[in-house]
């Protein structure tokens, strides 16, 4: 904790020292600026050579700080690349917000080191896990020093966390984040135009009563679907993030589909019981609505028997599973003389 509180002080100190030393190493800063302007959203790709050029072989205090994102393309991890994009937003926003203040903009450079192509440079920092962001401040000599790193619990993959990290360590303000809008302006205008053009046709169709919405079978299907997903406890699985199934603690080859205990359920468990809930009602509906219109009596008989057996089994299974899962035994309240 103590290190963190002193970091901004260190930074201040270094900035004041810089003003003296900056004259001696202006070309390095210039080079970084040109590298930055040539790279996408201002994130400089550091290689083995450039790391030694800009960090290790420059005597402290350096006239700039570097904020390095450690990446690994080979890892092929989606969250990591997502975070990398967020990092790029921060970089782009920082440059845009401090565009006309070169004294600020040229003190911090956003960089990236990729483990897959520049493992040597990567190794210099002794990074154990990804994603990781490190601030190389002007006074930093030992690159393995963990004080410049973002703390593990703060790394949550959002641009805001990066901004917070930078602002807490450097006394600089990044300013508002400029995220690209979800849809570009041309896309929005095209969509608006399409909606505007199709509205009259849609209204005409609605007035005539020819849309999908007028088909009651669609509504019926949707209703039963909503019912199915609700009684399966799908919301529980979404909110609590339950997996479809888990591996057994003792035997890792065995899969566990049913969780014992009333407050949790697994995904597959919910869906299968939801299916049992629904199958009985749907069969009953079929028998009472459609089967009565079937001509063949024997067909009716066979199907009804089948439906009744399936329903009976489904109800029995749910009752069994319920007592197994919750541990409740329903009393039947027979007269006591019957026992």
């Amino acid at each position: 904790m103590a290190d963190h509180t002193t970091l901004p002080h260190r930074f201040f100190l270094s900035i004041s020292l810089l003003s003296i030393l900056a004259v001696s190493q202006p070309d390095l800063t210039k080079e970084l600026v040109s590298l930055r302007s040539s790279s996408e959203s201002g994130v400089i790709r550091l290689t083995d050579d450039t790391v030694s050029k800009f960090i290790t072989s420059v005597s402290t205090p350096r006239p700039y700080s570097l904020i390095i994102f450690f990446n690994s393309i080979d890892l092929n991890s989606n969250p990591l690349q997502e975070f990398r994009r967020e990092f790029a937003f921060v970089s782009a926003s920082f440059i845009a917000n401090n565009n006309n203040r070169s004294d600020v903009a040229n003190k911090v450079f956003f960089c990236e080191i990729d483990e897959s192509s520049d493992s040597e440079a990567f190794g210099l920092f002794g990074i154990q896990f990804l994603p990781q962001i490190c601030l190389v401040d002007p006074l930093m000599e030992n690159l393995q020093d963990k004080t410049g790193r973002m703390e593990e619990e703060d790394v949550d993959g959002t641009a805001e966390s990066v901004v917070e990290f930078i602002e807490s360590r450097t006394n600089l303000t990044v300013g508002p984040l400029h995220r690209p809008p979800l849809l570009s302006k041309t896309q929005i205008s095209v969509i608006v135009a399409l909606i505007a053009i199709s509205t009259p046709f849609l209204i005409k169709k609605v007035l005539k009563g020819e849309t999908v919405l007028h088909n009651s079978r669609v509504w019926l299907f949707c209703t039963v679907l909503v019912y199915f997903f609700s009684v399966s406890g799908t919301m529980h699985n979404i909110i609590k993030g339950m997996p479809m199934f888990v591996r057994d603690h003792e035997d890792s080859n065995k899969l566990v589909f049913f969780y014992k205990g009333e407050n949790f359920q697994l995904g597959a468990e919910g869906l299968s019981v939801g299916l049992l809930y629904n199958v009985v009602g749907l069969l009953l509906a079929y028998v009472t609505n459609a089967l009565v219109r079937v001509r063949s009596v024997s067909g009716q008989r066979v199907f009804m028997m089948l439906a009744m057996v399936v329903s009976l089994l489904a109800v029995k299974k749910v009752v069994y599973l319920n007592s197994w899962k919750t541990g409740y035994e329903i009393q039947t309240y027979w007269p006591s003389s019957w026992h």
Partner: protein
Amino acid sequence: MAAVESLPPGTPSAMRNAFGTVLSALILVLIGVLAFSIRLFSVIKYESVIHEFDPYFNYRVTQFLSKNGIYEFWNWFDDRTWYPLGRVIGGTVYPGLTLTAGTIWWVLNAINIPLSVETVCVFTAPVFSAFASWATYLLTKEVKGSGAGLAAAALLAMVPSYISRSVAGSYDNEAVAIFALIFTFYLYIKTLNTGSLFYATLNAIAYFYMVCSWGGYTFIINLIPMHVLLCIVTGRYSPRLYIAYAPLVVLGTLLAALVPVVGFNAVLTSEHFASFLVFIIIHVVALVYYIKGILTPKMFKVAVTLVVSIGLVVCLIVVAVLVALVASSPTGGWSGRSLSLLDPTYASKYIPIIASVSEHQPPTWPSYFMDINVLAFLVPAGIIACFSPLSDASSFVVLYIVMSVYFSGVMVRLMLVLAPAACIMSGIALSQAFDVFTGSIKYQLSSKSKDDAEDNTSTKNAPKDDASSGKADKGEEVAKERLSKKGKKKEREPAEKPSVKSKIVKKKALVLPLEASIVALLLLIMLGAFYVIHCVWAAAEAYSAPSIVLTSQSHDGLHVFDDFRESYAWLSHNTDVDDKVASWWDYGYQTTAMANRTVIVDNNTWNNTHIATVGTAMSSPEKAAWEIFNSLDVKYVLVVFGGVIGYPSDDINKFLWMVRIGGGEFPHIKEADYLRDGQYRIDSEATPTMLNCLMYKLCYYRFVETDGKGYDRVRRTEIGKKHFKLTHFEEVFTSHHWMVRIYKLKPQKNRIRGRVKKLKQKTTSGVSSKSVKKNPWM
């Protein structure tokens, strides 16, 4: 009814109808008795006592109302709670329940039936459950006829989900609100079917009663507009729809704004915007239909373009205004509870106080089996029955089930709103199934006897044709009966349609094989019997515990744990009237109602900071906690501890929520400090912060003296720190089974001059500012 009028009196049909009406009335009375009596298990097994937490507050308010009258009640500022802030009761409470019970009490007293307020409060819920089942009958009758109505009413009378909120003694808003909800829906459907302004007005009044009773009225004011919109979109607009909806919005909103707790929210919050938007849309649509009626088709086409474009512009403007209004309010105009319905993950992310309540958790599949039992199997059949044919009324109940089943999936508490819908759907399904099965049995038995009489010697296939013509008699009758109902509801359905249908019916008789029908009937009856058994079991065993008195059955007999009332009585007898008692918010209502002492926080969780302050005190070490409590003028601290008898919902098990809620406002409280490797434990592995916090100390003080080892029966472990002394608190009361422990704050020590001087020299400004930071009230 129409059928009765059209027939001359004295005909067998008229007799049958009259008999049916009397029988239905009798069945309804029995259903009412059933609904009332199944909820009396709690009184029989325990005693006539108010249950749980919130009912105690309602009881206290009702007492105040019956003692001081309605005007005093309306202006009541309660200084016994949320000390030092107090609470305006008249303006923050849904008055429906209290006014209802107060009125019942007043009427009973006026006719010289001297029941106590408590008795009236205890039995309000069962009485209203009977009303609710009658309302269900009316609603379902409007949708699918009286057979389905009776089945639905019988199912609702004993649906466990509703029983859980309406057993005798559970004196809470939901007790009357479910009746109001169903009755409002009934009146809406009735208006929709009849187009009568009389019912529309009644509907607005019923809605007003619902607004008075429960915050769940937002469900109505969103569901009905959705149904109206659905009708418009699917081309079912009719003047009856307009009459059913427009008066409800105008009158209903005006009336709703009269309820102090709602007030201008009725027009300002997003929960109500849908109704206004649909109100505008229905006017546009009504205008279109009106113009269509007075113009020739060609002129109409021209007019359509005009009206549609104007309507669109108006709608766009309104939408823009709404969006601007919504965007300007911090939560987007939605209350946290409503938001967590729309985005189910909202509460768990942002509002620990909502997420901490167990009834706000999403349910798992056994919850459905527990709460609506076999209805879960029958609902899909009911949905399909509602779709064949789809009428205005049946589309409403379909929408109702879809919405309520989705919401119940997000919050287990809303299972209560699902229950009536599930009962209606299952009632429809059961009634249809019984119709078909008994119809086929009856018809085939009668045709068989006919065959026997005629002694027809032809082959087996021959009587089938005969049968089908004979079948048609009965089948046609059933079909005609149904169609007449349908025709009544769907006025605009052209007349030729029924005849077409009856022709189809004539061709194929609606019958199933005899034996299979009998077996199916038996299975259905078994299913119903299972439902009854389950409901009685749920009412008797699961939902009747008052939670203020606990019992446990062991091999040496029944144990009764009456510790709560024991300790509240102790408080009221042994402390000063104006003493302040601090406890976790769960026990606030009970303390004010039973001990009549001032509390810091209670179950009306309106002030998160205040609750967080108490949470912080409970999570702090003794000295810091003492400072916080002392600054709040607290004299006594009450904790609930279940370690001796194994009562699991005690304060130690709730403690992590205190830490989380406290930490949400005062960041020096960190959840991680109380967990060892992410695990919550109180044994020797527990963190020092945990072992030194006030909650641990107050719960486990002298605990080791009970058995010599300090074995906690809830956590099933020996506690970590067994022998310690309290420095800033002293134990004044521990109940019989150690469930409630009350501590008094020790008075501030006299300061010795020299010591104070020394301290003064030592303390720096930095230290003192730190201590101020920890105590938000200094």
